[in-house]
């Protein structure tokens, strides 16, 4: 069966420090991968998505970047965190190849990031 792992669960980082959040998927090949963020009082916002290794699309301009070094690994990074980067970050996957709309998305457990 397919599983998705996301870590760490919580993170407190000072302003200006770097960030690396990792997400891995098991049990499927060539998934579409996503990073979402939920800021306080707001809905989930799509940050990045990837349809293949090395292919990253950004939905909103921001202080963050994403990379996909392997088929089932998706990393969210920042060189220097801002206070406004605080929030709840969710990784998700869906089946690729245009079939994903039939199955919905599967989410990781999320990372609560607090920038202080």
């Amino acid at each position, binding site marked *: 069966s397919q599983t998705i792992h996301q870590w760490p669960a919580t993170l407190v980082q000072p302003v200006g420090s770097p960030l690396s959040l990792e997400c891995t998927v098991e049990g499927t090949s060539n998934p579409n991968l996503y990073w979402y963020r939920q800021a306080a009082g707001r809905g*989930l916002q*799509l940050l990045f998505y990837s349809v293949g290794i090395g292919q990253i699309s950004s939905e909103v301009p921001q202080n963050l970047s994403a990379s996909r070094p392997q088929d089932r690994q998706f990393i969210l990074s920042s060189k220097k965190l801002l206070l406004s980067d605080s929030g709840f970050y*969710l990784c*998700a996957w*869906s089946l690729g190849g245009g079939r994903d709309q039939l199955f*919905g*998305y599967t989410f990781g457990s999320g990372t609560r990031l607090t920038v202080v």
Partner: protein
Amino acid sequence: AQSVSQHNHHVILSEAASLELGCNYSYGGTVNLFWYVQYPGQHLQLLLKYFSGDPLVKGIKGFEAEFIKSKFSFNLRKPSVQWSDTAEYFCAVIKGANNLFFGTGTRLTVIP
């Protein structure tokens, strides 16, 4: 701007009460609609989804939702809630390829 709206931010119900959570979207054309639930300490799970066909969709745990195209709505319902339904509920829409857009969520608290 295109958006997904959930007007109820926090709903408090007693057990056995009926539930209806509102969801409206502003996208034109064909959309696929979802309701997700996040129980305390757990990750998001899919409750139900609508792609086409019967606009009344049955989901897990006794939930259902009705797609009303003329009202751009996809409200979630359950005839009798339980304490274990306490969670946060997210409405979501796929418009075009791949990308899922969420509403702000509704926190449901069920009092035993």
